């Protein structure tokens, strides 16, 4: 065997091994989390309220809060993030303002989430005097989403072939018509991928929410009030393991972890399904 072919074989083997390794890590991780957690999950666990001292509490409010806060934070950050991304890709001319916006986006993206949490606490919890609230949590979480959404949107919009713009403008479309009818639909798959990414991170976020939405839940369930405390699933795992007084803390943490994985999966699926449908409709 020549040296070149030898090198080719080795490279193939190494790259294959790297791919398999990822698979093994994920599989081991999922088997452990789901293996320990799934048996805990039953209707009662999913829908009942947590208990402070006694065993047998559920995570109903946390499940509700997880979806509620994630959805609210997306509701706040999506229009701003996508809007800024479109501006950066389509309108921004090279210059001071553009550089400043880009710098701000990158700076925001590099802020550790614990700092965003403390910032949220200073601003919403203490400054506004709201205390720990779902509103404060969602707003602080939006700061985490924003830079990713801006960047993903900008990249997705830039990736739309220039020929689409020319075709549309050549037909006498305005810039906005071109963006709304041709560019955004073409960039949508990329933007939705970004939303999936952001939603996954938001669902699993703890540091920000501990300081803004708190580690307790409303006495009512479900409580759609924006001003209620809003512990989420991820925060519940942290809280029950680090300062929980319930005797079945391990059971609750295991069940909540499995549920969290499933929630992310469901969320991704909900976003991917229309994407898949959209792609298959437009490709051929």
């Amino acid at each position: 065997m020549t040296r070149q072919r030898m090198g080719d074989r080795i490279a193939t083997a190494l790259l294959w091994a790297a791919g398999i390794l990822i698979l093994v890590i994920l599989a081991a991780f999922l088997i452990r989390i789901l293996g320990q957690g799934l048996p805990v999950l039953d209707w009662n666990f999913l829908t009942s309220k947590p208990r402070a001292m006694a065993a047998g509490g559920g995570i109903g409010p946390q499940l509700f809060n997880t979806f509620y806060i994630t959805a609210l934070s997306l509701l706040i950050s999506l229009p701003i993030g996508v809007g800024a991304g479109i501006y950066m890709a389509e309108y921004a001319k090279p210059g001071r303002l553009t550089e400043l916006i880009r710098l701000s986006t990158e700076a925001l993206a590099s802020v550790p989430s614990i700092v965003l949490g403390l910032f949220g606490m200073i601003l919403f919890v203490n400054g506004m005097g709201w205390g720990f609230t779902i509103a404060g949590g969602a707003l602080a979480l939006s700061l985490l989403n924003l830079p990713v959404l801006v960047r993903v949107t900008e990249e997705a919009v830039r990736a739309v072939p220039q020929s689409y713009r020319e075709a549309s403008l050549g037909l006498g479309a305005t810039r906005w018509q071109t963006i709304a009818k041709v560019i955004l639909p073409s960039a949508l798959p990329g933007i939705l991928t970004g939303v999936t990414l952001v939603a996954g991170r938001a669902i699993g976020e703890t540091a920000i929410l501990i300081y803004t939405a708190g580690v307790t839940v409303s006495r009512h369930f479900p409580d759609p009030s924006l001003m209620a405390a809003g512990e989420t699933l991820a925060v519940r795992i942290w809280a029950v393991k680090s300062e929980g007084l319930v005797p079945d803390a391990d059971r609750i943490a295991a069940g909540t972890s499995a549920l969290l994985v499933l929630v992310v999966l469901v969320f991704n699926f909900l976003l991917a399904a229309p994407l898949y449908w959209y792609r298959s409709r437009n490709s051929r």
Partner: protein
Amino acid sequence: MSEQMRMTVENVDLYYGNFRALRSITLNIPANRVTALIGPSGCGKSSFLRCLNRMNDLVPGARVSGSILMDGEDIYAPHVDVVLLRKRIGMVFQRPNPFPMSIYDNIAYGPRIHGEKRKAVLDELVESSLRGAALWEEVKDRLSKSALGLSGGQQQRLCIARSLAVKPELLLMDEPASALDPISTAKVEDLIRELRENYSIVIVTHNMQQAARISDYTAFFLSGELVEYGPTGTMFTNPRDQRTEDYITGRFG
């Protein structure tokens, strides 16, 4: 030329930053005729075409001086609505660029953005435009299918149909057949000859046989200059300029 003119171009210079891409071009574009722009790569023929519907506006640093009049009106005057201008001047590009939508939506795109909502009118426009582009028979049963599923030649005729749907007065074509196979090219050429009845056409081509086959007038560009412009027949049999003769006889380019 004792023709009726659609567009008159006088002393047009085009700069990209400091680069002078066109040098005082003066040329008249007759109505209901096919005018071919020929010349080697980089000679400025495509750049010139893009001056005619202000597509160069999209290029940062591009500047145009001189005057381009369409039906007597300066298209670079400050009060001119570029959007309206581009509606009057259709453009077909080098590579077919259908939108990732259905065939029907591609054709209806132009009329829709200009406010046409009536289904019957749109249906009629889609059919007449596709017929005008000699594509109707091939696609009439799959109008709701994606345009990306068409062959390259069909896509290009679709793009021509899409331009026709907004009823332009002038049609600009930037090497419309260069990405197509010979059979598709022949179809597009036949189509251009037919369109001449109702439209004024300016076509950029690097293929001299094509220019000879389909055009009434030919302009030869070289290094940003217009070397020679005249009736295609004269140009190909009896060129005035030595450089034109060298080019069309294949001595360079």
